[in-house]
């Protein structure tokens, strides 16, 4: 998995800790995001998609349901990962 795949996986798993399997259901609804294996948390963002945008869309699903708190928890889940990204590569929802 590349860094954005890992970010997406981490976000979904963090949400799973809070809202349970619903996290995976919501993730399936995100375009260009493929759930390969729920148990291992393996996901794949389509190669031709805008990776940062897909992440933003994923975060938006949770924010729609649970508000700003959901955005905070998504960001906290991946703070270690996004520290390695160039600032311009960081998805807007996670800044």
């Amino acid at each position, binding site marked *: 998995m590349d860094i954005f795949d890992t970010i997406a996986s981490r976000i979904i798993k963090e949400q799973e800790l809070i*809202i349970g399997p619903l996290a995976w259901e919501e993730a399936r609804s995100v375009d260009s995001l493929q759930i390969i294996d729920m148990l291992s948390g393996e996901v794949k963002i389509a190669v031709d998609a805008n990776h940062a945008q897909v992440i933003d869309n994923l975060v938006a699903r949770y924010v*729609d*349901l*649970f*508000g700003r*708190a959901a955005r905070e928890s998504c960001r906290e889940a991946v703070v*270690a990962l996004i520290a*390695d990204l160039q600032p311009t590569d960081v998805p807007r929802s996670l800044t």
Partner: protein
Amino acid sequence: MSLNSSDSSNPRVSNDIARSLYKQSAEIAGKNKTLSLLSDLYAISIQSLNEDELARRLVEAILDNLTCEIVSIVLLDTNYTAMTARATANSKRLNSFNVESQIAFCIKNKSIADNTLIQNAIKTRTHLYSENISEMWGSILNDATLAAIQQKGHVRSSLVYPLISGERPIGVLIVSLNRTFTQLLEHERESLINLTFVIAVTLDRARLYAELTKTNRQLTESIKREVEQRKKVEQLADNLKHANERLTELDKMKTEFVSIASHQMRSPLTAISGYSSLILEGSYGATNREIKEVVSKIFRSSKSMSVAVDDFLNVTRIEQGRVQLDRENFDLKELVQNTYDEYMFVAEQRGLDLQLDIVTHTTVSIYGDRNKIKQSLSNLVDNALKYTKEGWVRIGLACTKECATLSVADSGIGIPASDQERLFQKFTRATNANSATVQGTGLGLYIVKHFVNMHQGSIWFESNGENGTTFFISLPIKEGPVCQEHKPKVIDLMNHPIRDRSSDH
């Protein structure tokens, strides 16, 4: 089931409830993460008691859970002077930089004073933080590695937590992150503080276990050595016992051999002395002077040998416990007189003055074995005559109500002080005895002492070591308790020799 904001039944309330529940759930999830990490660490702590293995598993767990770049556990030795990096884990992107081995090597070879962050964390017992990578790793990692971990590892800050176990610092936990302390999540900060307690207790316990194991092993080895020593001692004691039994057996065999040999020699000796005596008496006709001289020598030699054989036989009887006393009442004064008369001729032949000093007017009645007392007195007189080249020998008798004391004094060669302790032992002669060219078996005094002891008497002697010796035998007048060493009142007999006074009465 999914929550939908378009739900017609009070959607705003539903949303508020959902968000409120979400927040609470998120908080609980955060706490769960802390607890989960602590639970993982606890599980690690009970899986092993090996310090190195525990340290390695702990750093790996922390690295994964908290997404760190470098995690290292550094422990103090028991003297608090040296440190060792027990385990270090780094993120995958730092694998090519040998971070772990460099940290291990450098910390081992540097004193605690070289790193102020570590030193201060231990001293102050509080965790310290630095965003200066050189401050944390500058004294430990080389410049190339330092640059690499900053660029490739994106290390932006380091935390040093003291590990305290029971009020005592045992080392530090070092965590280097790709983010600042303020960017750490709340549960991450909580986790770091809490897990240092778990790490400290776990490793201290492992260390104690290692020391206990070592002490136990030493004790076990010590006990094993002691058991082996004891077995050896028992074996030696057993060997000694067997050797002693064998020696006793051999001694018994020797005694029997001497007894048999002596008996075998007695008959021929009797024949030799008997026939040579007859020849000297002229029973086989007249003999010329030369033959007489030769036969005299034969006679004297056979007599001398008979005395030696008798000594051997007496000793074997003593050792076998076969000596019995033939007790009777006899006059000791008469015995002394007879002995004096017997040795008068011998003394004259040697040019010595034989004297008699009986300081008593009445009979001295003794209940004992007359022959053995006679033999004992004769032995002493014989010795005195043998070891006195010129001068005199005096036989004495003095009495109290309880004891009669025989004495044989001479002006001979004396007995050296070094021999006085052992003179009554078997085969022992005074060291100056050989220089006096006197023949002897060294058994006479041993036999005399045994005979005297059988009569509950005592024997001792006095000598200044150079000239003159006086032997004393003390005997109870009547059969009774052991007569203690009794020295009769002595008039200065050495300088005022006294002639026989018994004929005055």
